[in-house]
């Protein structure tokens, strides 16, 4: 809200410099956004919060200044009371217009007045003030309505009397599909819930939003009907939104106009008409006001002030502040009975009054105290500690943490949907942010690609975040790795990352969450089958449920993110919610073994298509309980190994809790294992 200091000084004697006024008001709820010299005057721009339409006016801001600087305020309601009385007194002159409200739920008051006018330019001082405040001067009559709007915050409108059929004013709901050309020259099609000001024949204005072109005041106008009304905020807001039409008037009506100010605004307009020689109101105001303002008194209990603020405010200050703001505060036994003025549409309860008292007494007087604790805190979201554990492991394995937008391009999401529909936004900002991510991997691949395009070949990133599907949200951990397996070092040989580097990390995570994951060939409809290279892809299962993927991202998926080069990018994603649902059994500590372990190495010649899991499974199902570990420590194909075969070396460790095992029994057990491997898998010991 732009206001001129000279205009403010018409309402309050404040000699202080503009900068100080701005600084002090900023600490009382009206933030100064801008300050600009205008000749020897100052233009102050205040940020007015949505609850304070009364401050969308010179007088409203001047009232706040008067309270802050403790100066008398020349209230327009008071100054113009006499003029209002004169204009509303019964008279012999019959008004040359009839006014009817057909929608009293949307229009609680309509004040009309007929004036004879001579259209011309406004005096320079008025044109200058309007221009400074960002309103274009049009003609003396229109300018006066705008001047009153800026000064008192009450919107006004002027109709050309001759162009009103009747002449009548009917405040009614529009007919569905009714049309009206507004002042900006655009034809508007109205809806049945919109409020219009009509004459006897048609709509002549969208109530509280904009006037109609047909009844517009023009250079030949000699008689006008002035409007000062009150329209229901929700209605004006909905209409303004639906028509995509905002005006100085609609912005004030939708926040709430002062029901008591309609006649005051009209009196001020009449005063300005005469003062500028633009014309004269010729008949009494017509005030259609079926249900006058009757505010509910609010009881303000004195202890409640300190009870809410945590600081005591002296009674004298309470009364000074409320009175200066226009409230009527009368003492009651325990505090005050307070009636709010018509312009304070934000006042409903005692806390609203306490805010007024607190802010004008000064929040700088608040002490610093602490809320007492009455009980132990409720437990925190268990996901926080869980996610932190996942992060710790990823970080320790060299992955840096990424955070990506949760909405992505539909094109990037589509390979990751695994047959489900995307969760699309109804009103996305752009194509880039059109759907909620079904997986963290597209975002992570975009981040890998970004880094590679900016000169990084070796990239290790992870993200912990939310994924979205038509059935809801789930939290996941995703990993992406490309480039070197370990950082370059003078001592070592360079090696690029492979699938088993990433699988090791996933195995660590599974262990940390006590989740016995299995790494299985993807089924045809699995996510892994859609986005990972065949033969280098696994679907991760936990107790029969798919909980993630691991593998090499396909070139098609990488290309979708403009990934430069042809290096393999390995990715994994794990459903953390599924993992934490599964884990949880309290683990008991085991005593350390008291008897030595016996180790046997066995080298086997196997068919190359046989999986390590099958070999391991066969061993574990046949071996005695004393076999405590099986480790594949070498796998070899090439010279000396027949075509189609592979040499797999296993280390078997035996240990008993009761006694020392004899060499003979360990050898026998090993021979039996090898025998079974031979019979069931065709393995030959080398």
């Amino acid at each position, binding site marked *: 809200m732009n206001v001129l200091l000279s205009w403010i000084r018409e309402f309050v004697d404040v000699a202080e410099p503009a900068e100080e006024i701005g600084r002090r008001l900023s600490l009382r709820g009206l933030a100064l956004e801008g300050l600009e010299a205008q000749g020897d005057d100052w233009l102050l721009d205040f940020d007015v919060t949505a609850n304070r339409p009364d401050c969308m006016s010179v007088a409203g801001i001047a009232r706040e200044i008067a309270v802050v600087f403790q100066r008398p305020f020349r209230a327009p309601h008071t100054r113009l009371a006499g003029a209002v009385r004169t204009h509303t007194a019964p008279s012999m002159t019959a008004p040359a217009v009839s006014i009817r409200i057909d929608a009293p739920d949307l229009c609680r008051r309509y004040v009309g007045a007929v004036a004879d006018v001579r259209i011309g330019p406004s005096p320079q001082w008025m044109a200058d003030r309007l221009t400074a405040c960002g309103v274009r001067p049009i003609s003396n009559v229109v300018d006066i309505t705008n001047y009153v709007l800026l000064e008192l915050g009450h919107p006004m409108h002027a109709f050309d009397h001759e162009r009103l059929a009747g002449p009548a004013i009917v405040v009614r709901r529009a007919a569905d599909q009714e049309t009206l050309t507004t002042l900006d020259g655009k034809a508007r099609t109205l809806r049945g819930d919109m409020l219009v000001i009509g004459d006897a024949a048609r709509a002549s204005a969208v109530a509280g939003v904009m006037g109609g072109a047909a009844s517009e005041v023009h250079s030949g106008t000699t008689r006008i009907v002035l409007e000062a009304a009150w329209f229901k905020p929700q209605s004006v807001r909905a209409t303004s939104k639906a028509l995509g039409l905002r005006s100085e008037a609609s912005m004030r009506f939708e926040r709430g106009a002062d029901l008591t100010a309609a006649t005051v605004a009209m009196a001020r307009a009449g005063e300005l008409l005469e003062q500028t020689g633009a014309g004269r109101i010729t008949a009494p105001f017509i005030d259609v006001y079926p249900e006058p303002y009757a505010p509910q008194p609010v009881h303000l209990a004195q202890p409640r002030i300190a009870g*809410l603020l945590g600081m005591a405010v002296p009674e004298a200050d309470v009364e000074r502040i409320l009175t200066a703001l226009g409230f009527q505060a009368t003492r009651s036994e325990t505090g005050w009975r307070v009636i709010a003025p018509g312009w304070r549409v934000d006042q409903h309860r005692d806390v609203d009054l*306490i*805010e007024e008292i607190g802010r004008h007494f000064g929040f700088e007087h608040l002490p610093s105290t602490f809320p007492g604790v009455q009980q132990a805190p409720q437990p*925190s979201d268990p996901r*926080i500690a869980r996610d*932190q554990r996942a992060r710790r492991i990823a970080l320790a394995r060299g992955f840096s*943490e990424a955070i990506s937008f949760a909405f992505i391009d539909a094109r990037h999401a589509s390979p990751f949907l695994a047959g489900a529909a995307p969760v699309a936004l109804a009103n996305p*900002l752009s194509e880039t942010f059109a759907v909620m991510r079904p997986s963290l991997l597209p975002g992570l691949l975009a981040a890998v690609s970004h880094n590679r395009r*900016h000169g990084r070949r070796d990239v290790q990133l992870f993200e912990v975040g939310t994924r979205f599907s038509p059935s809801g949200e789930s939290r996941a951990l995703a990993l992406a790795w490309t480039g070197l397996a370990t950082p370059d070092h003078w001592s070592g040989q360079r090696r690029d990352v492979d699938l088993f580097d990433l699988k090791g990390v996933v195995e660590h995570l599974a262990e940390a969450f006590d989740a016995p994951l299995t790494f299985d060939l993807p089924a045809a409809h699995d996510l892994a089958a859609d986005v990972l290279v065949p033969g280098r892809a696994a679907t991760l299962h936990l107790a029969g449920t798919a909980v993630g993927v691991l593998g090499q991202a396909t070139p098609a998926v990488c290309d979708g993110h403009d990934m430069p080069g042809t290096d393999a990018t390995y990715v994994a994603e794990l459903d953390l919610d599924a993992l934490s649902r599964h884990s949880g059994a309290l683990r008991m500590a085991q005593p350390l073994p008291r008897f030595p372990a016996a180790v046997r190495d066995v080298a086997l010649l196997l068919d190359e298509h046989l999986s390590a899991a099958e070999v391991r499974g066969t061993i574990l199902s046949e071996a005695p309980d004393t076999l405590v570990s099986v480790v594949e420590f070498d796998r070899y194909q090439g010279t000396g190994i027949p075509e189609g075969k592979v040499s797999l070396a296993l280390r078997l460790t035996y240990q008993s809790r009761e006694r020392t095992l004899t060499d003979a029994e360990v050898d026998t057990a090993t021979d039996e294992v090898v025998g079974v491997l031979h019979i069931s898998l065709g393995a030959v010991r080398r």
Partner: protein
Amino acid sequence: MRINPSIGPDRARAVFDEELQGITTDAALRDLRHRWLARSGSWVAGFMDLLAAAAPAEKKALGRGANELKRHVEQALGDREAALAATKRPEGAVDITLPGRQPSLGFRHPLSLIREQIGDIFSRLGYQVLEGGEIEDDYHNFEALNMPEEHPARDMQDTLYLATPVPPPAVPPPTRGRAPRTPQPLTLLRTHTSAMQIRQMERHDPPVRLVAIGPVYRRDNLDLTHTPMFHQVEGLVVGRGITLADLKGTLTSMATALFGEGQQVRFRPSFFPYTEPSAEVDIRCIRCQGAGCAMCKRTGWIEILGSGMVHPAVFEAVGYDPAEFTGFAFGMGIERVALLKWGVEDIRLFYENDLRFLEQFGR
């Protein structure tokens, strides 16, 4: 010079010192020792021969001179030997100036660091830390927070809506308050984490003491200071006798923990539909400590969060008696804290995941 004891012990000593100067290897040192100390044919042996043949009157002085020379030579050779040994690499030595073999260790995202720090600060103050869901229903995001349909304050938070609603999460229904008893489909991306606070109050009696942390979404275009997704932390304390002064103490404590000892906070009256009174909170400018600089637009203060006393309408929505309980609430952007704390000038950097950026904030 060739061995010539006749020059006398003093001049011989000068000769030795000069010869010692040029010795840099063990072998040369061994040769020098032999030349000066060997049982025969050395300088010292020569002096002994001279001494044996000397006249009784000269014997005493010559003997003392020869002994001093011998002691000096032994001492100097010993010192040089030790000095040479010290410069030598022991067996199996390595070049310790080569870089170490660093195990891989990733970097934390700066937003994640701040988020954890804030969680820790409030855990220490006895708050429960909640995260909640990121998609919400209209009731919990707006209506219960005193923002009914057509409330002008809804303009302050331009909302992103889902094209198709998502079924509500399978949680027990609220035990109190005005919330619909059948859970509503989720239709929008939460614009603040306050929705989580409503859900918590609907299921628990006061006192309440929580912070809700997580991503929130608004229909803001990307620029230097806005992203359509950002992270928020919101605090809520409800009980008997909770005051605005309690909020000031709490926020001062948080600001000190985040930005350093001696932080001050300042309340400026403001407006939020869900608090009354409402205040925007400034901290002392962390760059100029209040003297005034470009970052704080020469005010000495920087706006950091919005806060206030919980509006009675919110209590009524969750079934708390506003005559019995009061509470404070605050909400702060985590990106904003990170921008201020590290002097980051473009908020979009937090979402680019450029390692050159991420590697600046520590592990």
